[in-house]
């Protein structure tokens, strides 16, 4: 019975992240529109967009290779696997041991690897500019993210997300400077990795300011739908990570009775809502920065993460 419910929770999570991801994107867009005194599209618009793209004929460039056509599915799959293994409304998932926090970071790295390759496949200058800037951003964001992972793992004596969340859920964790630094670092990385303002602009069509959009410029139809869906999943994953680790309120644990799971789900949806509104407000309030200011921005995130680790290394004797 316990085994069946474990499988059920894992399955529900895999479907839940799929179902919620476009909604989060929709809410962010709606909030931004309202703050600009526009009415904005409905929060359900991303679902309609995905459906529309899927139904459309795919037009690909004459010299596109098989890699170009396979990449959207691989990107989507790697992101989905990462999002399914990270705790969202319940910790201690059935398969969460298959990939710890480091592996989740690396899975997102795999998705990006194929994304940047796909950007180069057609051989246009926009694809190249997008890919080369993406690898520059990633080469700083990924180490910063690993620093965050290290800090959390040192606190929890484990790289498993479930164990980390158990530690942050317990009252023993208290207020820690290193956790605060890591939170700031993680938020900065999340903004950069999800191509949000101030690093990139998800709504831009000014060619020279695009990073993510430039890479996917040649995609259309179902391929574009998979990429957009993957991007929405990635945003959801980062919000789940931040919410799950730093605000683990209401999260169900394995072995809890059924109602706890529903509470967990409610809390999760509420956290996503808060995250989406906060992101919308932040993006409206801030201006995009020049591309070559981004290394300073991410270098800050890297240094914060590194300082947090040093603090932990110095302040603790034995693990």
């Amino acid at each position, binding site marked *: 019975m316990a085994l069946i419910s474990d499988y059920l929770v894992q399955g529900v999570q895999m479907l839940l992240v799929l179902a919620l991801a476009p909604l989060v994107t929709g809410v962010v867009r709606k909030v931004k529109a309202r703050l600009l005194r526009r009415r904005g599209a409905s929060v359900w618009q991303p679902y309609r967009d995905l459906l529309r793209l899927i139904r459309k004929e795919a*037009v690909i460039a004459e010299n596109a290779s098989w890699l170009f056509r396979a990449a959207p599915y691989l990107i989507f799959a790697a992101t989905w696997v990462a999002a399914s*293994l990270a705790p969202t409304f319940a910790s201690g998932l059935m398969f969460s041991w*298959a990939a710890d926090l480091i*592996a989740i970071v690396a899975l997102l790295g795999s998705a990006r690897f194929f994304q940047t390759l796909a950007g180069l496949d057609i*051989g246009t*200058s926009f694809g190249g500019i997008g890919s*080369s800037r993406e690898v520059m951003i990633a080469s700083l964001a990924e180490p910063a993210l690993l620093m965050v992972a290290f800090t959390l793992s040192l606190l929890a004596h484990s790289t498993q997300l479930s164990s980390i969340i158990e530690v942050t859920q317990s009252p023993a964790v208290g207020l820690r400077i290193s956790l605060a630094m890591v939170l700031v670092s993680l938020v900065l990385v999340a903004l950069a990795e999800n191509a949000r303002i101030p690093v990139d602009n998800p709504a831009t069509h000014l060619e020279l300011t695009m990073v993510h959009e430039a890479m996917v410029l040649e995609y259309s139809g179902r391929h574009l739908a998979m990429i957009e869906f993957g991007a929405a999943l990635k945003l959801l994953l980062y919000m789940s990570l931040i919410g799950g680790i730093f605000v683990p309120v209401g999260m169900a644990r394995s072995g809890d009775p059924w109602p706890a799971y529903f509470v967990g789900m409610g809390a999760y949806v509420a956290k996503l809502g808060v995250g989406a509104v906060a992101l919308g407000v932040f993006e409206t309030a801030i201006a995009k920065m020049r591309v070559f200011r981004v290394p300073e921005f991410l270098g800050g995130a890297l240094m914060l993460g590194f300082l947090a680790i040093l603090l932990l290394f110095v302040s603790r004797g034995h693990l």
Partner: protein
Amino acid sequence: MNLSVLSAAIWSIVALLALSACGAVAARTRLAQVLIYPLCAAICAAIGALALWGLLRGGSESLVLPLGVPWIGSHFRLDALAALFLAIVGFGGCAASVYAIGYGRHEAAPARVLPFYPAFLAGMSLVVLAGDAFTFLVSWEFMSVMSWALVMAHHKEPGNTLAGYVYLVMASFGTLALLLAFGLLAGPEGHYDFASMRDLVGARPLAGVALMLALVGTGSKAGLVPLHVWLPLAHPAAPSHVSALMSGIMTKVAIYGFIRIAFDLLGPPQWWWSVALLSAGAVTAVVGLLYALLQDDLKRLLAYSTVENIGIIFLGLGLALAFKANGMGEAAALALVASLLHAINHATFKSLLFFGAGSVLSATGERDLAAMGGLIHRLPFTAALMLVGAAAISALPPLNGFVSEWLLFQAILISPSLPQWLLKFLTPAAGAMLALAAALAAACFVRAYGMAFLGRPRSPAAETAREVDGFQIGAMSMLALGCLLIGILPGPVLDALAPIARVLVGQALPAQSGQPWLMLAPLADHRSSYDGLMVFAFIAVSAAASALLVRAVAAKAMRRAPAWDCGFPDPRPATQYSPSSFAQPLRRVFGALVFGARERVEMPAPGTTGPARFTLRIHDFVWEGLYLPIAAGVGRIAERLNHLQFLTIRQYLSLVFGALVLLLTLLTVWR
């Protein structure tokens, strides 16, 4: 005679040497050209299988042959560590030989390659099996000289003679350091066989110096910064299957030498030894990759990436030494096994990548990334296999590179329990460097793969390239399969490494084969676990399911049309991103600090018709700051001493007399 594994391995090496002699005599005949590589492949496969059997069976064998120095003889020994590296040499050599069956047909001067190739393989195997310092050094020099001869095979190409010269100088320097290290290890009585060195515990005041000498000696062969300068010159200069052997396998033989000395012969370590290893490893990893990011020559890029991976391996070995010195057996075993696994992995994917580069070279005649592009259409199999290699070296799950880096990260995460403050500061910094190197590796290989195989062809050669033959593709497929298998089933490999850890650090990781779902949990499983098979299955299933689902729902129609490119597609391939423009953002971020890179744009004044100019200056601080001054100093001294060549016989005799008196005085004072 009872044929043991060791003697069978030595007979195989003798067969390789005999083959080498045949090659020297008959290299110009068609028969030798057809037969040598297949025979090498068979012998190497036998060596690999023997070594694997020796590793799995456990225990050690030794043998003394009446060769070499009188009364000492030549000792040979096959223990778990030697068996692992012999297996790397055997299987790596086998793959390279299979590849060479196809690749060697394009060789313009087979007589310059065939005699040396089997001897090079034999030399590497002998180093691993050596059981005394004399045999070790002689085999080491033999390996160096044979590989030097192979580097010089195409000596008429520009730059290759310089590469050979620098290699020879660095190899002699490395051997000198090793010779001195063995001198210190031998102790006052001069025991040159490893067994008595091992027993000589306690009476070694200069052990730290011996370790540093060993680090310099093996590090110069493996490519530690700043001793790496010869490697990006020499590795690409050799024929591609030899480049793969030098980069993938010979550097591992150097790693073997270091592990043998540092973990086996030197006895109990001091904690501060690890400081040198950790810092050298971390710096090497990041600097090697930054060099690689800026290279336009595909083979040179791969050679610099070897430098990076050697840094990662040494970093892991440093951690293992630190843990061992502090009596943390399990952590030491974790770090050591992570390094050994990375050595295996690097041998696999670097050979694969060099084979791929060789195939591109034989298909297009080009090593310059700026003259490639679009090869995925022309060389579909090579492109698919290279993609596996590029993803594996970028440490992407579920391939093998990720497993070893993951294990190393786990080892770093235990290091706060180290008692020394210096190590407490150094290990997180090393961890940060490792994280940076992992991210930069992905950037580097996206660039290399994207420029060579994706986009539009940048030269007529790339436009008309033809897929390579079955032997080359077969050899690459073997290695790509290895990358995948080690990635999804690392448990059995780690278990095979357990006896090595037990001998060298006194403890081994818990057995991995019994874990549920073939998961990997090096320490307690609530601490950390990873399941490559599961991740692979998840990705495969969800990618396939989403593709099928989308295809069921979606419009089936797909149309090919000209590239969109925001409405202004330019048909000229020159408008694509070039290798150097792709590297430009990263060059701006890291280049100013590490390479003193300066960009200058000169725009003509408005209204004038002069061209705009862009100049980029990059400095190689190691070469300019360390090697050129040394070379200049040597040149200056040589010039000063030159007049000694033109003395009279009387002056020479008084010179000899003076030297004799001086030495005798020294001897009296010393006593």
